């Protein structure tokens, strides 16, 4: 199986924000039956999707399973929109890449 991933100058794998976004949309659909077409980067978890903090914990468990990255609950407290969440996860990928 071939799969394409960008590589940065140091040769590490970089997962793009778009990929993270689509992973997140899949998770939202799986866990909460949220129609993917209604989700954008500006969508707010609590206001628009009715996702509360306990739902968010479930979501973060799934993120950990799919991406291997664990988002700190304190970081997640400041996440309002899907876009915030994507950036926070993206930051974890970058951090991990820098370490390798």
């Amino acid at each position, binding site marked *: 199986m071939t799969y394409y991933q960008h590589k940065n100058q140091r040769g590490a794998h970089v997962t793009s924000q778009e990929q993270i976004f689509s992973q997140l949309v899949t998770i939202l659909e799986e*866990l*909460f039956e949220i129609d993917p077409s209604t989700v954008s980067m500006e969508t707010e978890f609590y206001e628009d999707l009715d996702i*509360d903090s*306990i739902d968010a914990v479930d979501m973060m468990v799934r993120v950990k399973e799919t991406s291997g990255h664990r988002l700190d609950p304190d970081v997640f*407290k400041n996440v309002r929109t899907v876009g915030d969440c994507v950036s926070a996860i993206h930051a974890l990928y970058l951090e991990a890449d820098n370490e390798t």
Partner: protein
Amino acid sequence: MRRGVRRTLRILATGFSFVIFGVTCIVLVVVIFPVVWMTSVSAEKRRLTSRRVISFSFRSFSRMMYRLGLMTYDIRNLEQIKGGCVVISNHPTLIDVVFLLGWIENASCILKSALFRNPVTLGPATAAGYLNNDSTDLLSECLHSLENGFPLLVFPEGTRTRPGEKMSFRRGAANIALAGGTEILLVTITVDPVTLVKYQPWWAVPSRTPHYQIEFQERWNAKSYLSDDRRSRQARNLTHDLEQYYLNILPVQ
């Protein structure tokens, strides 16, 4: 004229009650809790004694308000209180928690984080080990409290009911009951005429003495909701049914 004088007296008595409430909190923190602290053998025992002290103070406070002619109250079906269950209630007024913690002796309670920043309420809330709704690990703290066999009081609306608006429940209480496998005890509070509601200043006392009715209605077993395979759907269904129950029996005030 007579009516006006009576109303002024009730405003003064209300102000007096507020002062007493604050002074009691301070006395508890400065005098009583240190004694509890020194004489308790374990942290668990300390929290429990503190809760009983708070419960006693709240019952006395209710009786004081009654004697001052500020309200009458009627509390029904107290025998429904037993063991570790999630106690939920609607939240029409400022002093609902005084009745509920006053008559449910060992209860823990989820409080909004503002009460942990308020210098008057911080001390008692901490001594009794009440839970902060802002905590990252709130769910496991709640489950821990239930495992110890204590009732846990939650106002599913998260704050006082907005007058004239339809109640809206958050899903925390349902999630706690589902995760802990405990029963839910449904309590209703009505007050007529309305007083101490959200956005209303404390001195806006009603023209006649308000009557509080606190009713321990029924216990629900959350188990039937567990048949759904998704946790998120279980919590949503249970919350929806609880909300409907309250909307059916309580008029919008």
